[in-house]
């Protein structure tokens, strides 16, 4: 079938296409199969994963309150369904969470009604944000709002998101990821009685380059703003709002970063940093990320391209891959810059300080 693929994909045995071997259509057809699979399925695992412990993330307000923000990479213009899964509960029926994804100038929304009445009592709720216009961005901003029913208090335990993979066969025509294009490979044009055209090779090379640029989420974390609970602060409602000194020895991912990035200027690591300051004049904050010091010259979200300067972690041996620490560095600079108190965030002592309220690190 045209533009079809199998799942799991059929690999071309590299040893079957070396000089001296018989030319078979099997190997060429498999190139097309695995190319189409990688486009359809690659990068559709978790792109957002975050959990809160019991009595941490609560809301008793009866109007939607914006509480979390994350950057979400768009993996292609053709992946148009973002699945959202929420673990939350409320003893009173009617609690809701609303997710708004802004891509370019458009915002897409889904609202989930929370059904569980106690912690992990039965089921998580799920929904989808459907992208209805042509969008071709690197990433978009996802915001989560939460509201409780009258007399109720909702507690969020976790959130997860992923793009839906495409199904076989792929739609005909070009697909895009920003300036890169992907052209599906039609199996019917690779039959044994047809010539192997120049087009096939050129498109496969371009397709591989496009897919190498497809983003992977290596780290994604949001603080929680606007928590409100009827319980005392000692028993509920003290969610982390910013990354602070005490987070540095465990708040990171161990992620593979693949060799060969340095040789291709189109393969980057990108950090989105969300800085908040709730009053007073802003003095730029800087933090160390992946061995590089970046400065946020304004509050809100800022974008930074990273040239990581890190040593591989010993766990690379286990993974068989080059694995690095991805997150805020445990550097002396960060220990100072991120030593921010709750009263400084709120200005309770008369001083407001900037704090890192969200961090997304995207690799390739």
């Amino acid at each position, binding site marked *: 079938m045209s533009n079809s693929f199998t*799942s*799991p994909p059929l*690999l*071309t*045995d*590299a040893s*079957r*296409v*070396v000089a001296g*071997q018989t030319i078979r259509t099997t190997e060429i057809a*498999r*190139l097309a199969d695995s190319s189409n699979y990688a486009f359809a*399925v*690659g990068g559709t*695992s*978790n792109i957002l994963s*975050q*959990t*809160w*412990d019991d009595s941490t993330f609560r809301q008793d307000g009866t109007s939607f309150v914006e509480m979390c923000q994350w950057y979400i990479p768009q993996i292609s213009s053709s992946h148009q369904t973002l699945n959202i*899964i929420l*673990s939350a509960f409320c003893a009173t029926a009617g609690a809701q969470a609303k997710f708004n994804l802004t891509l370019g100038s458009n915002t897409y929304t889904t609202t989930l009604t929370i059904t569980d009445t106690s912690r*992990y009592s039965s089921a998580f709720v*799920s929904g989808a944000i459907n992208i209805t216009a042509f969008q071709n961005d690197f990433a978009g901003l996802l915001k989560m709002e939460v509201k409780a029913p009258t007399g109720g208090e909702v507690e969020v335990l*976790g959130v*997860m998101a992923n793009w839906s*993979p495409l199904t076989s066969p792929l739609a005909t025509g070009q697909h895009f990821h920003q300036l890169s294009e992907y052209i599906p490979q039609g199996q019917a044009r690779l039959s044994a009685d047809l010539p*192997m055209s120049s087009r096939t090779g*050129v498109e496969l*090379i*371009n397709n*591989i380059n496009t897919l*190498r640029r497809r983003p*992977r989420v290596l780290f994604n974390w949001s*603080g929680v703003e606007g928590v409100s609970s009827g319980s005392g*602060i000692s*028993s509920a409602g*003290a*969610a*982390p709002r910013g990354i602070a*000194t*005490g*987070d540095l020895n*465990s*708040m990171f991912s161990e992620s593979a970063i*693949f060799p*060969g*990035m340095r*040789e291709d200027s189109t393969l980057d690591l990108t950090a989105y940093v969300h800085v908040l300051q709730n009053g007073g004049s802003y003095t730029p904050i800087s933090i160390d990320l992946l061995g590089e010091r970046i400065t946020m010259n304004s509050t809100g979200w800022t974008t930074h391209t990273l040239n990581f300067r890190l040593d591989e972690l010993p*766990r690379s041996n*286990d*993974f*068989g*891959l080059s694995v690095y620490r991805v997150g805020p560095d445990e550097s002396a600079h960060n220990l100072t810059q991120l*030593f921010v*108190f*709750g*009263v400084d965030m*709120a200005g309770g002592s008369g001083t407001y300080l900037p*704090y890192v309220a969200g961090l997304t690190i995207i690799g390739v």
Partner: protein
Amino acid sequence: MLIPTGFIGLPSVDGCYNDQVVMGGTVTQLASGLAQLSHCKFLGEAHYQVSHSTYGGWSGVYGTGSRLHNYGVVRSSYKAYDYNFLYQSTALSEKLAILISYAGKRGSSDPDIQCQLRDTASNSFTGTIIDQGIKFTNLSTQGYSYAPDEFIFSGTQLINAPTNVSPTVLIRPLYVPSINRGQLLNISVTVNDVAISGVHIYDVFEVEVTP
């Protein structure tokens, strides 16, 4: 065949023009480049940070909203205490490596962390157990409710389908039966006297596969 772990240079598109010899080096490089994508770069991973209340002994002075010390707080309620971490697997998710950051408290019994794998039929947290999983028991601990974060790892052993009927202390990756690959899965984690601050889930990379 061996799976490349890096972005190996691709042939120039000129090498695929008419009158060029493509079988051999050019097609081999294309095959390797695609294998790297499907079997390496696009293996699934999920990185859960587990946020805890920032209320503590210093909150009266410093307020809440940030974690000022690098100690996890092991609450008395952390006994047979569950979490559920959802993971969107792919058709290639056969073994799942688990990396956990945690703080442990030594009490009358040793602290432990159990990880089981469940399906998510009907969005249920208590879906069918598809791997009875593992039980970490050799944890670093302190004798107090406050302890620095440590890491523990399942390893990446290339196991066959396990047969244990309860979580085993012989630590290994979790195993996804072929029928469940590509589904949304639930890594169900139960702790005893442990505060976890992060759970990281990885498809295990295999250096060599059979085409």
